[in-house]
């Protein structure tokens, strides 16, 4: 049972005050956005589900500590992203297996694009997933929040707990690396290599080796 008239703040307050349905309503209201962030950051549905479950349990338990310094959704995203980054860092030594294309359907819930959503080229989406998987988790998370999910840099800074300039830098360097991996840099002269100083006259575009930023 939901009551869409209640704001996120009201729902969280109601949860703290003992309303057993309030947090469930909050979860259902934002689950798809949170899921999109988690599954795109981790590129693994099982890991994303586990991270999201952990994060939401944390939020459920810590709701009384929410002081309203940010929007409830920003707070929820922060908890989810932190859970994802923790998992991503733990598995960093292991190779990532990117997800198949997003058009894959679940047994009981087709993952159909929303009517208004433009279709995404299969190969493009798969290439993007593969390329993102090669980025350091922090750059990946920033790019997914800003460029994929479309959140403002200022909000992403709050979610990630860093300065806006840091968000911009992570995005900028991540884009530059993706540009090489995805082949957006022209072959031939003038193409730089990410992660260091390069000889522009001998640039090697489309070099797939992306060094993690340390």
């Amino acid at each position, binding site marked *: 049972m939901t009551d869409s008239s209640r704001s996120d703040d009201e729902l969280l307050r109601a949860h703290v005050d003992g309303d057993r349905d309030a947090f469930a309503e909050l979860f259902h209201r934002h689950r798809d956005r949170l899921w999109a962030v988690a599954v795109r950051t981790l590129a693994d549905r099982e890991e994303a*589900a586990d991270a999201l479950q952990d994060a939401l349990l944390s939020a459920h338990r810590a709701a009384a*500590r929410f002081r309203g310094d940010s929007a409830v959704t920003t707070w929820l995203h922060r908890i989810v992203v932190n859970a994802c980054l923790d998992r991503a860092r733990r598995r960093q030594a292991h190779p990532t297996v990117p997800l198949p294309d997003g058009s894959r359907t*679940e047994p009981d*819930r087709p993952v159909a694009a929303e009517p208004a959503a433009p279709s995404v080229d299969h190969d493009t989406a798969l290439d*993007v997933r593969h390329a993102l998987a090669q980025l350091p988790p922090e750059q990946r998370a920033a790019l997914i929040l800003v460029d994929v999910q479309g959140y403002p840099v200022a909000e992403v800074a709050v979610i990630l707990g860093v300065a806006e300039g840091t968000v911009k830098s992570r995005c900028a*360097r991540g884009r530059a690396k993706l540009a090489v991996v995805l082949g957006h840099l022209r072959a031939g002269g003038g193409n*730089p290599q990410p992660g260091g100083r390069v*000889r522009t006259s001998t640039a090697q575009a489309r070099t797939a080796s992306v060094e993690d930023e340390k």
Partner: protein
Amino acid sequence: MTGQEFSEVDFDLLADYVGGALDGTPEEAVVARRVAEEPAWAEAHAALSEATEGVRAGLASWGASAEPMPAEVSDRIADVLAREPHRPALSLVPDDPDGPPRPATRARRRLPAWAAPAAIAAGVVALAGLGWSQAGDLGGSDDSGSGTTAEAPAFGTEVVPDSAQGASPQVTESGKDYRALADAQQPPVVMSSGRAVAPNKDEQGQVMSSPVSVLSRLRDPAALAACVQAIAAVHPREVASVEVVDLASFQGSPAAIVFFTDSSGARWVWASGPECGLAGRGADTRGSAKIG
């Protein structure tokens, strides 16, 4: 890379420049100058700017596609959340010796008038008979003698009389075991007659024993004043008025459940253990929550 004679471009620095991360910094002007003056930087800048736009477009296109949470994941998480014990708000800070976080620049606290030592010295514990004027302010029924409210009936009620400056807190022993904030939405009712009414019962219908023996120290006005003073010391705002103190239990352990209003007008309920107000023990905080 070889040692050939090529101009070097700091790729990360250039990427920061293209991405706006250097905006307003001294490095922005440095990179801008090199892009303007050095062909290698200019060439790399043009290439990276164009490539970055392609990347952004690709990411945005991917992001425009829906990524709904699979039903089995949604059901699983919803089930986990539903099975999660609904932690009473009072228990959310049970281990926090300092209580809720407080602003770094808080003003000096003012204790409620009744808690002043001079007032306490004059205090005399008396049987209830002063009515329940404050409970009505908290949304309870006007029960002056009616005893019709369904909220946690009290028994063994005692009242600390008014001080010269303000309302006195009413002390009661409801026999309740506070486990959820819902239990604390209304302070226990103090019957105007002072007669004991039906004691609180647990879920199995068993009469709950009063923890008064463990908390008896707090029946002393001076000890209770010290306890409230300790709570005021860790609460972010001034304690404007104490509405009632229920010598009861919190999650099965004896606790003084203090209902008060702070200087912002917010109502709070605070659970303090038997050592509340003792030297070195502070408020012996077991939990606290804003209510209403």
